[in-house]
């Protein structure tokens, strides 16, 4: 039986947005913590630590996000644990975001002029204080624009969680499309919702990037 595409269906899709946002928020928050660790490991003088951070980044930048989701989803079941799609997606995307943010932030940390580090040595600051008070605050300013840019990418990647059965925005669209067979309306609406979330973020990222380029050129 084919259902009408009515207000109930629209509401179903609009309410599913919250799961897209929840998954994005978890992955972004987890990725922020993981990304900081990866970035610090990557620039560490310890070769093993730097090397493993490098391998971690290469793996996540060199494999499809969909495969990363599948490996976590099916990998956990190996331990005989039944895993909810949200849990699997949250773990996979947290790792994914850690790798990407780690690489982005490594670049930002290394972009802080080395004179700053040398000055803090001269002042006798130790590693922790140097990072916390001198290097990271300056790196953070450079990092805002690319980080917001990555957030847009991450929100789009959460749509792949629909494939392992997590009912977020894209999966809700598929469910409604299967019932109503109005692909134009359904996926048009779904695309519109993603656009309404991502476009403002893209604009903010681009504006900050331009402002930073102007400051840097001065």
């Amino acid at each position, binding site marked *: 039986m084919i259902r009408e595409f009515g207000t109930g269906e629209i509401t179903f899709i609009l309410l599913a947005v919250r799961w897209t946002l929840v998954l994005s928020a978890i992955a972004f928050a987890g990725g922020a913590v993981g990304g900081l660790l990866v970035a610090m490991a990557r620039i560490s003088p310890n070769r093993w630590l730097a090397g493993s951070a490098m391998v971690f980044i290469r793996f996540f930048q*060199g494999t499809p996000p969909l495969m990363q989701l599948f*490996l976590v989803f099916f990998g956990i*079941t190996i331990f005989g644990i039944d895993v909810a799609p949200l849990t699997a997606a949250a773990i996979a995307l947290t790792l994914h975001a850690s790798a990407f943010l780690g690489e982005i932030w490594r670049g930002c940390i290394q972009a802080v002029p080395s004179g700053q580090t040398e000055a803090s040595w001269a002042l006798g600051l130790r590693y922790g204080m140097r990072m916390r008070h001198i290097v990271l605050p300056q790196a953070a300013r450079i990092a805002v624009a690319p980080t917001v840019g990555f957030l847009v990418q991450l929100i789009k990647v959460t749509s792949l969680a*629909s494939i392992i059965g997590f009912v977020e925005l894209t999966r809700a669209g598929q469910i409604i499309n299967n019932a109503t067979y109005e*692909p134009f309306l359904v*996926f*048009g609406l779904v*695309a519109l919702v993603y656009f309404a979330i991502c476009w403002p973020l*893209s604009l903010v990222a681009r504006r900050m990037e331009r402002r930073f380029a102007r400051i840097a050129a001065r």
Partner: protein
Amino acid sequence: MNYDFDFAPVFARWPDLLSGAWVTLQLSFGAMAIGLVVAVLGVWGRTAGPKPLQWLIAAYVEIIRNTPFIVQIFFIFFGLPSLGIRFSPNAAALVALVINVTAYAIEILRAGIEAIPKGQTEAGTALAMSRLQIFRHVVFMPALRTVYPALTSQFIFLFLSTSVVSVISANDLTATGNDINAQTFASFEIYLVITVIYLVMSLGFSALFATIHRIAFSYPLSR
């Protein structure tokens, strides 16, 4: 953990995996090649075309870059047939990939062209270079050098995105994995092998692109 890894059913289907990987490569290179040509036209329209065309292209670029690829492919594969346009899964996959990569390529190429100062072509004229020489040595090669890193990382991004076309059962590498999974249920082993195949290919592309970069753009930047 008492799980017996069983890779035998995966390796038994090695020929299928190879042909899946071949489809993935065809989709990636095909979409990139077509996408670049369309993007060159797009950049021309975006910078030199009439105002409405400029807005249209700008809107297209923003819409594609701010929506997930999986939604775009659903829209094309399920949506367009209701307009009477029907595709096989592989054709729909190629169309969706082209539409997607073109939007990114337009932005990359535009940035590359904007980076070339006008004085540079004028300097070429002053040196009595022919128009072809100016285009080749003054505009094209420097612009290519500027956009090359972005274009190659875009290609690898595209290559990894092709795995999503498995959702409309195009027969790429990931879809081949889905087939084997449906018959053997050795899910983790299958997707691990496939992930390694993707990883080897993308690392290979990175190395290849870096070598090309060294050879083709080794001339000094300034003096």
